[in-house]
Structures are given as structure tokens and as C-alpha cells.
């Protein structure tokens, strides 16, 4: 199974995407903005549609749109307790989706270009894409490793609705959204929208069910994402399924396991007390 180059590169990419996205996912889930992934994905799709209309290179423009979108999203601060950021992000998602449809319907070449630029498969990742991911993901990872305190402080403040003391433009908040924007655009292009969404959300949520401390939470999320990727790729090769959906299915399975473990632990602690 592991003698084929395409399986090896799928594993490498799933490790890269898994480690970075499950870490970013801890922030995303903590802030309660899980749809940020779909919104940013949709914004870069809007970029492709726009590039099509003005006949420009879709790759650069879609990345530009994602960065611009991340910049704008970083301004969203909700002090009103009745509202969650998620609601605003949902609006961004819906409106950019609609704008994409409107643009495509007047663009000359229809939908096929858009899907070509945006959706790949882990099995068909090119060495250029891999190189770009190593550089960008490495840089994001390093940034978050060095300044992890800053990023987690910010996330905790937002978690606790203490947004008053976060400035209108907050550099760290922008850097956080920029990291997510870049990571998602690159990841979606090799992995597809739904797998990337799952990598961002399933491991952190499962880890929250199992762990308490921040460090153990991050490590558990990373472990789950690695396991999901490895099992997903093997499942896909063994039974000949598309790889993205296989990984999502296996991550879902791991989530179920986490739920069961959590239930068992709760039962045990209740009987003990």
C-alpha cells in the first residue's frame, strides 16, 4: 500500500494539513467561528469567479481575495451578547456565495473553471503545491509557536466576550485571520472544502470532549487529525474510495469514539461520587 508515490504524498499532505488545521481549529472552535472556513473558501471562490470575468490569473486573485477577506473578517467584533460572530460570518458566506453565482452567470466559461481551480484530491497533489504548503504552513506554524501566548490570550478574551479591550484593528487578530485564510486556501485546493472543514472542526471538538488543559487539548486534536488522515488514506486505498470523503468519514468515526469515551468517563465518575 505504501509503495506508491501518490499514497505517500497523500499521507504527507494529510499530515501537514492535519497538524496545522487541527491546531488552528482549537482557536476557531474556541472563538465559536467554525463557519469561517466555509466563508473564506467561498471568498476565494468569488476571487476565481472575478478573475474569470476580468480574464486574469485565478490563482493569485483567489489568494488575494482570501487575504482581503481575512482582513475584513478580523474587524468583526461583537460586544452585544445576543449576537455571535458566527452569525456575521454566516452572512458573509451567504452573500459571497450569491455574488459568485451572479458573477459566474455572466462569465463566459461557466462553472467548470471554478471547480478546476478550487477542488483537488490529496492523491493528485503536485510537487509545486507541496512545496508551497511546506513554506506557508511552516511559516504559519512557526509564527504560532513563537507567539502562542498572544494568540491564546486573544482567543480566550473572545471566548469570554471581553472584546472591549481588543482594538478596532488588532494586529494579532489580523495575523490569526491571515493564518486561517492562507491555510484554508492552500488546503482546500489540494483537499477539497468538506475535508478541510472537517480537519478544522472535528479534531478540536473531539479533543475538548477528552481533555482539559490547553496543551493537552492541542496535542490531542493533532493526534486525532493524524489518526484520521492515516486511517482515511488507508481506507481509501484499501476499498477504492475518493480520499477526501474517506478522511471525513474516519474523522467522524473518531469523533464518535471520543463521545463514547466521554460518556463512559462521566458514568464512572458519577458512580464513584
Amino acid at each position, binding site marked *: 500500500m505504501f509503495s506508491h508515490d501518490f499514497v505517500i504524498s497523500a499521507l504527507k499532505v494529510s499530515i501537514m494539513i492535519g497538524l496545522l488545521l487541527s491546531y488552528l481549529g482549537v482557536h476557531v472552535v474556541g472563538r465559536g467561528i467554525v463557519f469561517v472556513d466555509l466563508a473564506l473558501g467561498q471568498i476565494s471562490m468569488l476571487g476565481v469567479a472575478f478573475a474569470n470575468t476580468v480574464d486574469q490569473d485565478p490563482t493569485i486573485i483567489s489568494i488575494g481575495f482570501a487575504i482581503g477577506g481575512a482582513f475584513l473578517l478580523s474587524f468583526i467584533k461583537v460586544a452585544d451578547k445576543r449576537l455571535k460572530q458566527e452569525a456575521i460570518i454566516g452572512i458573509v458566506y451567504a452573500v459571497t456565495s450569491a455574488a459568485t453565482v451572479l458573477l459566474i452567470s455572466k462569465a463566459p466559461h461557466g462553472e*467548470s473553471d471554478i471547480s478546476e481551480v478550487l477542488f483537488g484530491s490529496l492523491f493528485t497533489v503536485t510537487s509545486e503545491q507541496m512545496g508551497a504548503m511546506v513554506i506557508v504552513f511552516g511559516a504559519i506554524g512557526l509564527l504560532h509557536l513563537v507567539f502562542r501566548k498572544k494568540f491564546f490570550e486573544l482567543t480566550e478574551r473572545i471566548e469570554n466576550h471581553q472584546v472591549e479591550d481588543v482594538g478596532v484593528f488588532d494586529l494579532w487578530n489580523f495575523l490569526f485571520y491571515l493564518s486561517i485564510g492562507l491555510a484554508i486556501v492552500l488546503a482546500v485546493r489540494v483537499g477539497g472544502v468538506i475535508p478541510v472543514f472537517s480537519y478544522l472542526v472535528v479534531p478540536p471538538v473531539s479533543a475538548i470532549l477528552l481533555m482539559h488543559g490547553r496543551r493537552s487539548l492541542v496535542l490531542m486534536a493533532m493526534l486525532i487529525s493524524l489518526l484520521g488522515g492515516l486511517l482515511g488514506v488507508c481506507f481509501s486505498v484499501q476499498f477504492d474510495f475518493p*480520499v477526501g470523503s474517506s478522511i471525513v468519514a474516519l474523522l467522524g468515526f473518531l469523533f464518535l469514539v471520543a463521545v463514547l469515551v466521554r460518556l463512559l468517563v462521566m458514568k464512572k465518575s458519577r458512580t464513584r461520587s
Partner: protein
Amino acid sequence: MKRSEFLRGFLTAGAIVVGVSLTHASEKLNIVTTLPDLKSIADEVGGNRVEVFAIATGFQNPHFVDPKPSYILKLSKADIFVTVGLDLESGWVPSLLNSARNPRIIKGGEGYVDASTDVPLLQVPSSVSRAEGDIHIYGNPHYWLDPENGKIIAQNIYQALVRMDREGEVYYSENLRRFKDKLDTKIQEWTAMIRPLRGTKIIAYHNEWPYFEQRFGLQIVDFLEPKPGIPPTASQLARVIREMLRDNIKVIITSPYFTTDSAELVARNVGGKVVTLATSVGAEEHVRTYINLFDYNVAKIVEALK
């Protein structure tokens, strides 16, 4: 020491020779095609000297195929790869070939067959801007839907077979001739069936029938899609309804991978009907070969227009 080394070397060499000649004698040429139509033709020409695998199924939109591991494995072992070409499969073939790392079948390799070579293409855009809403910059890629082009495809596959397997040349050329003869007879039969309907106006869902239309003398006057790949809009549907009423057009043809909701809506409005034709081998249960494909489509359209 020296002797045993020599012996080992000798045995290894012997084993390799035996192994190579064995695999040569028993193994067939591995052919991978993108569409089942190409597989059917490759089967006809290659006969029992080849093993053919088609990646896409007949009821799948050939513009979009989600890669599975087995596709890459088959491609990595293929001797010959046959593609429709133009830009029909541009969304998935280049990346699959890239992952398969098989130098024989990459573009320009000995085993790479672009089946569109020498096919007289239709709808090649005259302007570079593509502003008229044509996604196919090289011409319409649905050329296998003209049975005359089936002969050209067969010829292209034949050439690759001879390149890769000289010993089979006589066998392949005999198969090629037989296939072309069979198609010629059938083409006469099909055109005779459709002749009374020549010039009949119809509507199509997607722009994938120009070759079929031209061969059999039908006249596709409009499409439900306002532009290829863009789902029908309200104004387009209204326009088609007007056209169908004005010119007394009764039939809308579509393909298995499009929803028929909008076509049914239009048909209800004008008292016409929707006919789902087979765009590829395997689209319907009875459509098992390239020749079946036209048997099925011609019968279906004749019945609908009667």
C-alpha cells in the same frame, strides 16, 4: 566464493530472462481510457491481446471525475492511455497522469493517444476572446457522438497498438477493418431510420450534440443552458418555450447526468417531451458497446419524433 557469485549472477540473469519472456507471452497490453466509449472501440481493435479499463462511467458527466486510488494504480501500469482530448477531461486527467508517474503515457509519450487527432472538429471558436460563452477553446469535444468519428478514433488507437506491440499488427489491422466495415453498414442503417425526420428542429439541454446533429440531419435550435455549464435561467427557459411554441418543436434531448426538472417544466408548457439520450457507453443498461450507443439513441429519437 567467486564461483558461487558467478552462479548466483547466472541464475538471476536466467530468472530475469525467463520472467521477461513469460510475462511477454502471457500478459496483455494494458490500456486505460477516460471514457467507456473509447474502451469499447479499443476492445474492438485490440481484441484478446489487450486488457482495457475505462475510468469514467457512462452515466457520469465526463467534465468532472473524482479521482480514486485504483485509477492512479491502473494508469501507473498502463501501456496505452486513450483520452478524448481537447479540454473535455482537463479538470482531472492532467493531475491523474501526474500522480501515476508513468512516462509511457504522458502527453507525447509512446502510449499516449489523443483520440481527437484527425477528427474534423466542430464549433472551434474563431475569436480568441471566448466572449461568446464557449468553454471549449479547441472545439466541441463530444465528437464520439458521430459514428463516422468512431472510425477515426479506432484508427488512432490502432496506431498506438502497433507502436507498442508490433507482433500483433496483422491481427489489429484485421480487427480495425472489421470494425470499420461494421460501422459503415450500421451508419447506413441508422441514417435510413432517421431520414424521414431530417431537418426536424429540437432543443438540447447542454451543447453536446453537434456531431450527432450533423450526422443525422437534425436541427438543434437552442439549449436550456444559457451558456455551457450554467444551469438554465428563467429568461432562457421563457425564450425556449417561445421558440418551441412558435416553431412547433416537440422534443428536448438531455443526458443522464443532468436533472430533467427544467426540461420537464418546458415540455409541460409546450406539450412536448423530454428524451434522455445516452451520451456514452454504459449510460443505460442496454448500451454496452459503441455500436449499441447509436442503436439506442437513434431508436429513441425516432420514436420520440414519430
